[in-house]
């Protein structure tokens, strides 16, 4: 039973990865965007390293969020082209499996972009950090998961409205505030060379956010996915 479920979810993930490998649409746009934001930030802060150092955690997550929204908005827009979503819906599976498939592939893309943004920041802002940045990996992972848990649901909704992709950030940003707050807090700790355990409450919040919204969104997903 579990193997069959996993296989179905994997089929969707695999489809998304192959599409991405062939078109390279998402990564090109998300990474170019991140690079541009980095440039804008460095101009906006007037190259004063003191300011940048304080603002880095926030800048990191702002870049991540906006780049992520860019990718997410394509997620279901892509399915709408040629009404591919109909194909997904016709497959004899539970709708929540479609959600998990799309969510995991989105999470994967967003996570990779996050992992690229960090060294980019280190490079361009001459980041001097104490200790290791390795604890950032779980933070970005948990951040990505929570972000796409809600984002995948809203992406499916947004493409079916009049405002289309414009609506996605409007729906998503107020909801993910707890996620961003705790992720910024934890990233700040890591950059200061402090252990994650010092931000235990932020970490708990981040994990709670992920679990609550994966469960809630998987349940309500079947009401928003539809053929056009």
């Amino acid at each position: 039973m579990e193997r069959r479920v996993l296989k179905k979810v994997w089929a969707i993930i695999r489809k998304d990865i192959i599409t991405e490998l062939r078109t390279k649409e998402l990564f090109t746009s998300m990474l170019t965007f991140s690079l541009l934001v980095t440039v804008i930030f460095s101009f906006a802060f007037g190259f004063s390293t003191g300011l940048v150092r304080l603002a880095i955690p926030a800048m990191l997550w702002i870049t991540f969020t906006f780049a992520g929204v860019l990718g997410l908005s394509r997620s279901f827009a892509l399915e709408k082209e040629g009404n591919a979503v109909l194909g997904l819906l016709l497959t004899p599976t539970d709708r929540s499996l479609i959600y998990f498939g799309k969510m995991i592939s989105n999470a994967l893309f967003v996570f990779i972009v996050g992992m690229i943004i960090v060294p980019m920041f280190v490079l361009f802002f001459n980041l001097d950090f104490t200790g290791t940045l390795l604890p950032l990996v779980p933070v970005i992972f948990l951040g990505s998961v929570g972000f796409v848990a809600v984002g995948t649901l809203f992406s499916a909704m947004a493409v079916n409205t009049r405002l289309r992709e414009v609506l996605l950030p409007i729906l998503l940003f107020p909801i993910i505030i707890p996620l961003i707050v705790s992720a910024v807090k934890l990233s700040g700790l890591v950059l200061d060379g402090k252990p994650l355990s010092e931000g235990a409450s932020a970490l708990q919040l981040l994990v709670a956010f992920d679990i609550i919204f994966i469960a809630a969104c998987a349940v309500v997903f079947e009401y928003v996915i539809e053929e056009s």
Partner: protein
Amino acid sequence: MRKALAAVTFVLMAASVYAAFVYAPTEPRMGHIQRIFYIHMGTVWVATVAFILVFVSSIMYLWKGTRRWDILAYCSAEIGVLFLTITILTGSIWAKPVWGTWWTWDPQLTTTFILWILYIVYLVLRMSAGSDTKKAKFAAVFGIIAFIDLPLVYASVRVMRGISPVVFGPGGGGIAPEMMHALLINLAACSLLFLLLLMERMDLERMGDELTALKTREG
């Protein structure tokens, strides 16, 4: 029946104004500005009830699929936003002389602010979603997700500030019995006003439905 409710609401509203401005004693430390608290509490109470209603009726709508629940959710959200706007405005007016600022990012205020934005987004979503059933389903989903988000928002604001919130009740700790009376009258008046507005608004929505049905039938 509706007329009687309207009449009672009117009388109670008048009484609550009298209670807030004349009957209740002047708070010694804050002075007259404290009187705004009665309407402040009344509206925030209504907004809370309204948003809980949105959550419950959104779930019921997804479950049952009847238009009744959708209308209730929508109208409730609209009135909730209206009352929360009044809450924020009155709170701001109160805060200026007492705290010396119109706004501060204290956990309660921040949470209220995000709550306000969430339900404005809910209304934006309703406007933007196309056909009726789709609109209703999307809104219901957002209504549920937004409500689940609230405790997390509150926790996150505390994480951000690293402080625990202080509850500013009317007059701090114990309050005079007259103040309590004034507060209760205000709560009752606001509740009835909410009920009245909700019923009227839902009627309006139903009439809109009827009109659309007639139009499609007549071509």
